[in-house]
């Protein structure tokens, strides 16, 4: 190995990014060459100087960033996987075509797939399929399998079929479906959409109960915020205020707590003063503390309870 080659490799050597063989050759050369040993020492000194030039964020900076992020997240909805995302997710191989080409290529691929499948599927199979009267199930699950006799088998299948329903949001049957969807534990996106539609119908006692339930129990802050939005015209209703008070003292999301304060302080009361004072004792969010202080000040109340 020549000195010139060694000099170019010194930084990568110090970063541990040389191959085993190159590292070995470099070390052998440096052992024997005083000039390269000197060059290596200078590189090490430079690295030490660079180490000392690193900036580390202070804990205060990090805390400020975290607080700001928490506040901003309270007003942002995560996007959910679209139908096409879910389909694409099903394929383990990812192609990297230009985005504009993806749809035509996908369309052609599906046409080809359909054509080949139709040509390859034996007619007898299709025949038995129709004979079994399985009418276009969307999803199915084999619930029970039992051998009957002489190679025959009886299978019990759960089927889920899709139906498309449309109608006005204040239609009773549509509203019932929306109320069910608003509690679907498996899909936060569905709950957000459902509550968003229901929140415009809070005059219905059933809808208001669903909104109060969502505010108290939904795991997703986005759903809770939508539900709160629907309750804004009922901020003076005693039952609503009671639920909102509990949410204010228990909810872990600062955005939700902020919105609850906004609703509650629309109507001043002595009960409200003690709730805000209690919150002041445990609240760690600066913005919410400031809102509380301002509200207590407007109600001529002290910030602390005695």
């Amino acid at each position: 190995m020549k000195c010139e080659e060694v000099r170019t490799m010194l930084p990568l050597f110090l970063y541990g990014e040389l191959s085993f063989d190159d590292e070995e050759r470099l070390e052998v050369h440096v052992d024997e060459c005083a000039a390269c040993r000197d060059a290596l020492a200078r590189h090490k000194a430079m690295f030490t100087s660079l180490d000392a030039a690193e900036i580390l964020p202070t804990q205060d900076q990090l805390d400020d960033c975290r607080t700001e992020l928490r506040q901003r997240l309270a007003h942002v909805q995560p996007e959910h996987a679209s139908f096409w995302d879910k389909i694409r997710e099903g394929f383990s191989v990812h192609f990297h075509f230009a985005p504009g080409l993806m749809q035509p290529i996908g369309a052609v691929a599906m046409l080809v797939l359909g054509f080949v499948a139709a040509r390859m599927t034996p007619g007898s199979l299709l025949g038995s399929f129709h004979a079994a009267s399985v009418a276009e199930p969307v999803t199915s699950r084999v619930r029970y399998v039992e051998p009957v006799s002489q190679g025959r088998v009886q299978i019990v299948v759960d089927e889920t079929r899709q139906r498309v329903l449309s109608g006005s949001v204040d239609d009773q049957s549509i509203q019932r479906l929306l109320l069910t969807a608003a509690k679907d534990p498996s899909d936060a996106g569905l709950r957000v959409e459902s509550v968003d539609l229901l929140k415009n119908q809070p005059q219905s006692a059933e809808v208001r109960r669903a909104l109060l339930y969502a505010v108290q129990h939904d795991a997703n802050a986005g759903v809770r915020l939508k539900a709160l939005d629907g309750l804004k015209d009922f901020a003076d209703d005693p039952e609503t205020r009671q639920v909102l008070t509990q949410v204010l003292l228990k909810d872990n999301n600062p955005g939700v707590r902020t919105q609850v304060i906004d609703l509650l302080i629309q109507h001043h009361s002595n009960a409200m003063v003690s709730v805000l004072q209690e919150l002041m004792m445990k609240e760690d969010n600066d913005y919410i503390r400031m809102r509380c202080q301002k509200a207590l000040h407007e109600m001529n109340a002290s910030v602390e309870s005695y």
Partner: protein
Amino acid sequence: MDEPELIRAAQRGDQRAFEQLVRLYDQNVLRLALNLLRSPEDANDIYQEAFLRVYKNLHTFRFDCSFHTWLYRIVTNLCLDALRKRRVRREENTVVETSEGFLDRMDTVEEARAHGDPQRQLLSRQLQVRIRQVLGELTPRERAVFEMRHYQGLRLRTIGDMLGTSEEAAKNCLFRATQKMRAALGDFV
């Protein structure tokens, strides 16, 4: 919960899981942004924008690569964009020349750390200024590769993945960056 469980919970909308996920990486994200941009305000902006993007797009994360690589790809792209914009605005350097000599706007940031690091105290002010100048003269990609290798200790292969390039290209960037620094700091070390 381990990391994949946290990611899946956050993808289902679990706010606490997302917050825990943020806390696994956010110190290093802020550190990278701070060292690349050398401005606390800009570093905060990158921090916010990066984690907001992660939050909005977490459903698209399909475990094809590590979450760390995915996150850093977002962070480095944001930092590179910010550095390129700065170049256009000719605001690359935090070192400014005044009637009293060279002053660095980052001095206030580093003050807190200097007390706890004896080695740092030994460095001459001139050398610090020169290091910042030369970092400012690197191209955004050279700067990103150098910061990630030198300060974050990431392997070149990982850096290549994060920057959407090959290990070889990352190695070339690092080589050019160290050459430039060697040339600029030769009188000092």
